[in-house]
């Protein structure tokens, strides 16, 4: 097997990779809710209306479940928790005699608060609630189970610590901050990775404004083998979600980024001669970095800073996905650096930019993935120039209409086959004995995907195409076209 790229064989045997260390990027899970954080001893974490410290997590294995006890200390759960004893098998048959008088629970809110204040465990509180419910015994077995489940969810706080993966990150972002990822649902992301044939050893172009989620997903599938070029609008790439994956350093060796507003000059060949002006431009950007809000990034960054201040003064719940932290720190640190450091940083950036340009200019990328808030068609037509023939490409859009335009424009351009516009529907099920049915709510839309495969462009033909734009690249499509015009 010939493989380019700096892949590392996963550590085998010692299990070190399964143990949580200080500085690790982890995901906290409570029931179906996730939160990404970086492990730091002494740092207070707020999650699902609870606060705690992650100190006790360090040295434990991933997949361990903890219970929050007084003072925000996490206690690893020894064995599986004993089920709350249903103690009686007494149960009603139906609810004809159950009346909602609001008095079935004999414990008052204050009583419950007092129980909590005594440091009583969650499962004991649930037991108290059951014992003090006058209607519990009359409920049907199913209703009793449901009651217990609901109370457990409220009073038993078990937190599991997990390694970040695309599955978890995509589900977390979709439920918590869909706006940041252009409402990309996780099943749609799964389609994109498969349709794009993303795998180790590939050179992939990713144009995304999904907080780096798509970029992270692609990097996970490359596993450190191959390379990625991240195309971004504005002056800085935003990739907080990618940072949350906690990839090893080697994964960053072949991660490049390139600004979208330099693509035209790269295509026209004026990019390399532009070096000088480019240098000046970056200087300007760096110098004005903390001044006027030139770009969206800077606006975002300053928003982030205010959030940061909020956190420093007092813990806020607003900062749910803690992912922005790392980036903010970077920015803050950037401000403090002196002129020399700034200059060397700037040179590094120039080098990286040149490297990214060189990678693109090979015009032999193995795949292209677009998932952004930008109008996709111009971006797509431009970026396809950098893709080798017989390679898949995938464009995501929250809306269908811009992809209809892409489809038509691609047909006119030629050089692509097997175009398909699609969407997936995802339906969850509750599977329980005698209570199996589709989930009551489901996501209404997870966006649309246009996919195809590049083929060699016939130069002579593409000129002919200009005069006869109706002429198509696909032999079978001709028949399709006839059918279309008939309908």
């Amino acid at each position, binding site marked *: 097997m010939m493989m380019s790229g700096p892949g590392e064989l996963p550590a085998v045997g010692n299990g070190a990779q399964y143990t949580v260390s200080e500085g690790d990027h982890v995901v906290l899970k409570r029931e179906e809710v996730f939160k990404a954080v970086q492990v730091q001893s002494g740092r207070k974490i707020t999650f699902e209306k609870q606060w705690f410290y992650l100190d006790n997590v360090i040295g434990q294995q991933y997949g361990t479940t903890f219970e929050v006890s007084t003072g925000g200390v996490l206690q690893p759960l020894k064995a599986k928790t004993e089920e709350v004893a249903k103690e009686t098998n007494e149960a009603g048959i139906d609810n004809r005699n159950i009346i909602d008088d609001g008095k079935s629970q004999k414990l008052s809110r204050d009583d419950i608060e007092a129980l909590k204040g005594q440091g009583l465990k969650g499962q004991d509180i649930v037991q108290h609630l059951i014992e003090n419910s006058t209607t519990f015994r009359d409920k049907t077995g199913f209703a009793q189970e449901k009651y217990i489940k609901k109370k457990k969810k409220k009073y038993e706080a078990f937190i599991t610590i997990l390694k970040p993966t695309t599955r978890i990150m995509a589900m977390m972002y979709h439920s918590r901050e869909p706006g940041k990822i252009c409402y990309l649902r996780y099943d749609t992301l799964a*389609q994109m990775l498969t349709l794009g044939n993303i795998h180790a050893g590939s050179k992939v172009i990713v144009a995304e404004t999904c907080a780096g989620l798509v970029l992270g997903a692609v990097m996970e599938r490359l596993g*450190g*083998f191959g390379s990625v070029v991240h195309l971004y609008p504005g002056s800085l790439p935003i990739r907080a979600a990618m940072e949350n994956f906690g990839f090893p350093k080697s994964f960053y060796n072949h991660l490049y980024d390139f600004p979208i507003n330099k693509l035209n000059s790269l295509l026209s060949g004026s990019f390399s001669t532009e070096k000088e002006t480019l240098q000046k431009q970056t200087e300007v950007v760096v110098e004005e970095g903390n001044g006027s809000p030139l770009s969206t990034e800077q606006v975002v960054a300053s928003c982030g800073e205010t959030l940061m201040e909020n956190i420093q003064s007092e813990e806020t719940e607003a900062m749910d996905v803690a992912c922005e932290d790392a980036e903010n720190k970077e920015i803050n640190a950037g401000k403090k650096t002196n002129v020399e450091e700034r200059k060397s940083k700037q040179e590094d950036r120039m080098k990286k930019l040149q490297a990214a340009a060189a990678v693109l200019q090979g015009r032999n990328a193995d795949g292209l993935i677009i998932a952004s808030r930008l109008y996709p068609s111009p971006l797509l037509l431009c970026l396809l120039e950098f893709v080798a023939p017989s390679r898949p490409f995938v464009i995501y859009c929250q809306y269908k209409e811009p992809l209809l335009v892409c489809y038509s424009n691609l047909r006119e351009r030629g050089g692509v086959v097997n175009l398909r516009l699609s969407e997936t529907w995802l339906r969850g099920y509750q599977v329980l004995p005698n209570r199996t049915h589709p989930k009551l709510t489901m996501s209404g839309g997870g966006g649309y995907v246009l996919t195809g495969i590049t083929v*060699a462009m016939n130069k002579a033909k593409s000129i002919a195409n200009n005069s006869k734009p109706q002429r198509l690249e696909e*032999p*079978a499509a001709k028949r*399709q076209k006839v059918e279309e015009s008939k309908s």
Partner: protein
Amino acid sequence: MSFVEYRDVIQNGDTAIVFLGHDSMFAIKVQQGGATQTKYGAIKHSIDLIGKKYGSKVTCSKGGWVYILHPTPELWTVTLPHRTQILYSTDISMIIMMLELKPGSIVCESGTGSGSLSHAIIRTIAPTGQLYTVEFHKQRAEKAEEEFCDHKIDHLVTVKNQDVCKEGFGVVNVADAVFLDIPSPWEAVKYSKSALKMEGGRICSFSPCIEQVQRTCLAMTEQDFMDISTFEILLRVYDVRTVSLQLPDLGTGGTNSQDTPADLKNQSKENSWSDSQQGTTQFKSGAPLREMAGHTGYLTFATKYLS
């Protein structure tokens, strides 16, 4: 070519995809001196294919032409010879992401069937992962092994001809993920648990019927699997076309008749799609296909946490 690594040039022994048009593709094995017949005439492998670039247009003997595409698991799925019912890319995508597969993952699968999912798994876990696939049908197991060899991915997969419900996967505490597509997955759940690493891992079971799902979920609960969740994923494909609808003739005399032409004019100025002629209006539409797959199977996922 290889199913796990792109190459630019077609070589002797490659599996290549001949593309005649949408929904009209087939796989061929490129052989020195070989020839393939298409409805546009013959393709001579030595002259037309070997040494050419993937993605090239190839002119057939009768003057028609086709494209030759690099194989991918997705193209293989739509061109492979069926020995069983197969999984398609929509379900496969979900399975691969929800099982958290990536380069280096160790995966157990049963049954191998026609190898549609196997190819996608191997593509994802290469170059450092391994697939252990179990197929109780001897002939199918042998055929799959042959194909993996042909596709130069045999170093990434081990095929075992045994009954997973009676003998398991033949490996213990090595897998990051297990996938089951068998008629009675509940009988294989305990072997799945033992195949997974001590540190834990993910499991997925694919079943067409809800009764199978219920039994499987019960078995998973008994084996201490957590976060059990069942999904169904449906693919909706849209046909992109320009539609023109006739404008209603409301007669003359009303205020409406004066508004309509003005509306149309505005519309055609604002909207490049709508190239309105007298009496009709046009627009671009993504129309659902007349028929779609309404059900393939339920996907049940769960996690084994470290014990």
